[in-house]
């Protein structure tokens, strides 16, 4: 009725998953600096992809099912990306010297006022 994978496929995928598990433990005990996290996540995503495609038969599923599979991770990325965009940007300085340097707050009122005062003075001199 639906696709039947040969036994060899399952054993091969299992061997790959085992190999990747050994690799991720090995990588964890080596100092890779900032790359430790991306390597661990990269290996986990690779393992999950193998399970989804071959154990869960997503590779042989209909286009609509594939769309649903992709959709779950698409929404997961939205959840991570938008939440982190908010939290990580809260302390960001948007201008050299921070918010004050950008001319917000009390200083801004002065900055806006000064040119207007100069203009008035110039106009006064003309008269």
């Amino acid at each position, binding site marked *: 009725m639906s696709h*039947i994978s040969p036994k060899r496929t399952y054993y091969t995928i299992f061997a790959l998953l085992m190999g990747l*598990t050994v690799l991720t433990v090995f990588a964890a005990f080596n*100092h890779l600096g900032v790359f430790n*996290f991306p390597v*661990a996540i990269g290996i*986990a995503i690779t393992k999950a992809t193998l399970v989804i495609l071959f154990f869960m038969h997503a590779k042989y599923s209909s286009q609509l099912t594939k769309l649903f599979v992709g*959709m779950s991770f698409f929404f997961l990325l939205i959840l*991570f990306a938008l939440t982190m965009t908010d939290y990580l940007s809260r302390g960001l300085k948007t201008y050299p010297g921070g918010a004050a340097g950008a001319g917000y707050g009390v200083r801004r009122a002065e900055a806006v006022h000064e040119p207007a005062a100069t203009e008035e003075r110039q106009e006064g001199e003309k008269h």
Partner: protein
Amino acid sequence: MSDAAAIPADAHGHGHHHPDLQHHFDSLQQQHEAATLGMWLFLVTEVLFFGGLFMAYLLYRVWYHEAWAAGSRELDIRLGAFNTIVLIGSSLTMAMAVRSSQTGYRKATVNWLLGTMALGLTFLVVKFFEYKDKFVHHHVPGFDFQVTGDHAGLAGPMEIFFSLYFTMTGLHALHMVIGFGLMSVITWMAYKGRFSPQWYTPVEMSGLYWHFVDIVWIFLFPLLYLVDRTSQ
């Protein structure tokens, strides 16, 4: 539709189609496709269910990086790795169980399912001893949580780490228990000869669920046990 002759005379009879084909489906193929899609839709909600916890993990890890590193080193990497192997092994036996039901080998289906259940139980037993160890070392949030030694100053954020550790692995373990119950029913049905190469939908849908639970662990293992091992 006005042409009555175009509709097979026995469209609503029971004699000529598979007993497991429900009336609102045209064919077993269509019924199988609908079940697969529905199961995946459920799994999408599950991904986002766990996703909220992964989101919390990610944010607190950024905020309390040192506590995360310290907490991660408190976990037993050997037990974590052993359980990873056990769970991936159970995914293999599950995939083989589905294959056996597809090809119509009743005895093989039952045996592979029993193997899957045995591995699932092994995982839960190991997890039980890991949890027990955390109680002994006062690493359970809310139960006299203590951190001694170099990281005593990180006790607050480390309690958050262990809160997430218990929530994520606990929710995962709950899924394992539910999966175990599901497998018991499927194994019984397989034993009774309820499945055939034409209809094995429950085996395959339980398989999808089981593999999903495996995937959650594939992410939990590096995030909780491995990441930050070498930092500092």
